[in-house]
């Protein structure tokens, strides 16, 4: 049993099982849509978790990459009649390149300074998106044409549920492999102590940039998926509050936990839907629950509960 759970494929398999099981349990396309939103957020959160939880670098501008991915599938097909899939690939490529270019100077900074630099970067992208209205439609947003695959129009909550669920499983699978690879070990080493990592012969700057690029690509893919699901994009996808939301998902779910990323995304997407019945108290309750979770489950939901179970067993 223990061996089964510590196997590398355990996490993606658990997520795949969850996706399949939920598809039977969810009664209407509203629930399927909420689940698809969870999968999409979870993809971005896994990427950010690699950066924050494993490499120990914070980014308050990740919604910028998310927004770029979203606008890539909106703008490129509209302007250059590119296929949405190619547009999403192009978006991911551009995000990776941008992350590579800004990564080196930005990731030299530490702690609060890194936070402020990434924050500024995210705000820059959000501003560019809402100001270049000839290209992006400005603050009112722009429509995304529906994707056709082999002559078949991709639409409907159920289709997107499976597509985004599949993407999430692939994303989680890549992430666990990365974590178990030498790169993953290098990242954890520089998380614990950059000096020690350097002494051990790890090129700290290169690994930091590498994980930054990877996390940017995750965010971009998630952004593209959201834009295609919604059929419409607005600059809010790239704004500061969305960056904060992603960071919150990482922290609530559990830093350095792939399953935690899914849990964090699920809580922040589903809770507001449950709390609508409380009307005016909605935001207060949401804030209160987040506080309670963080106080009681200090290292995030999944790691804290896992530790608890292990203690029980002993």
């Amino acid at each position: 049993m223990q061996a089964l759970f510590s196997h590398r494929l355990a996490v993606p398999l658990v997520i795949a099982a969850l996706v399949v099981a939920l598809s039977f349990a969810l009664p209407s396309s509203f629930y399927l849509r909420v689940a698809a939103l969870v999968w999409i957020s979870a993809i971005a959160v896994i990427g950010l978790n690699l950066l924050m939880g494993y490499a120990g670098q914070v980014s308050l501008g990740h919604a910028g990459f998310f927004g770029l991915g979203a606008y890539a599938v909106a703008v490129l097909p509209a302007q250059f009649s590119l296929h949405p899939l190619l547009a999403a690939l192009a978006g991911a490529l551009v995000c990776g390149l941008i992350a590579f270019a800004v990564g080196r100077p930005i990731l030299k900074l530490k702690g609060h300074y890194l936070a402020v630099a990434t924050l500024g970067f995210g705000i820059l992208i959000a501003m560019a998106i809402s100001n270049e209205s000839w290209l992006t439609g400005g603050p009112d947003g722009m429509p995304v044409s529906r994707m056709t695959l082999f002559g078949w129009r991709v639409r409907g909550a159920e289709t997107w549920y499976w597509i985004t669920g599949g993407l999430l499983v692939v994303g989680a699978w890549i992430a666990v492999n990365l974590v178990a690879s030498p790169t993953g070990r290098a990242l954890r080493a520089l998380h614990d102590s950059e000096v020690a990592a350097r002494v051990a012969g790890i090129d700290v700057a290169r690994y930091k940039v590498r994980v930054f690029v990877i996390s940017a690509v995750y965010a971009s893919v998630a952004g593209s998926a959201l834009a295609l699901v919604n059929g419409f994009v607005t600059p809010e996808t790239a704004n500061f509050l969305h960056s904060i939301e992603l960071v919150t998902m990482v922290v609530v779910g559990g830093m350095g936990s792939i399953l935690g990323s899914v849990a964090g995304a699920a809580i922040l997407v589903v809770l507001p839907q449950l709390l609508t019945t409380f009307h005016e108290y909605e935001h207060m309750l949401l804030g209160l629950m987040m506080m309670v979770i963080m106080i009681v489950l200090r290292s995030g939901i999944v790691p804290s509960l896992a530790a608890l179970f292990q203690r029980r067993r002993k």
Partner: protein
Amino acid sequence: MTNLKTCLGGAALLAGAAMFAGTATAAETIKIGASLAVTGPASFLGDPEAKTLELYVDKINKDGGVNGKQLELIVYDDGGNANNARTFATRLVEDDGIVAMVGGSTTGATMAMVPVFEDAGIPFISLAGAVVIIDPVKEFTFKTPHTDRMACEKIFTDMKARGIAKIGMISGTGGFGKSMRDQCLDVVGSYGIEIVADETYGPKDSDMTPQLTNIKSAEGLQAVINPGFGQGPAIVTRNYRQLGIDVPLYQSHGVASKSFIDLAGDAAEGVRLPASALLVAEKLPDSDPQKAVVLGYKTAYEEATGQPVSTFGGHAYDGLMILVEAMKRAGSEDPAAIRDEIEKTSGFMGTAGVVNMSADDHLGLDLSAFRMLEIKDGDWALVE
């Protein structure tokens, strides 16, 4: 730990129970949905809209409801976020089973929701401004607020009447200013008016003197128009007087509120702007057919909420009333039948003006919807 679990469990149970309570009353009610920006940066739109809908649904229910059934209003707060609005739209259609939808406070939220209602075949009356919502016409989508294009046309009509042919334009770069600038540029040609200076300012700028100096030095300047929203136009108005520019200044319907006069102070004297009749409800002559409607809404809203009336709440009133009348005419709660009757709305007197919809006009307002106002002695005065 166990305490926390019971706490969370309790909260979840409570939420579940509340949801069940919500669905249990179904059967004999007509469900109307709304997703509005009740909180967040666009709450100045969503808050009066939500209050208006709640107020009037209560009133209608007290008077016996519609077609002998009570209305049930389901309002969600999307915070002006298009993604949230889309989720709530799906929820309203799939889970709550609404027969019609009022709202969508912002253009972004509205456009994100349109495909949901078009696919489900449920009539959707938006409360957002931009003309893209109804142009091109979409089968199930309607809207009540006048468009920025109409504001431009109203201003240009007034300019033409005063013999103005050369104007300067200074516009904000926010969503409102940008959209209205484009619309004004689009229609200005057909009024024989030429724009001799075209300047912009950012939403957070605190001094527009340089742009206005450029406009002032333009050859043959006869008037200036300022598409914008928030405090920008107030600063423009103050700078305008400081620079001693003596040609008429036109503001947009975006600043049609008392706070604009307060912010701009004496500088606002003589400024003209197109606005809804709601703003001058008491000043309308008794012979005005719109007077009873706007005064009635204004009194009811201010009595119930203790807050000054806003045109945005008025849009919600219009949307709800158009819907209710359509349901009465249709005599059923079949969404398709309601849609057909909304499209047949004619001669409806709302707070925004007379609404005459048709198959290729899902707004149905004409230029008479706007009143040209001038600020005199710190108050609105009708120009006719």
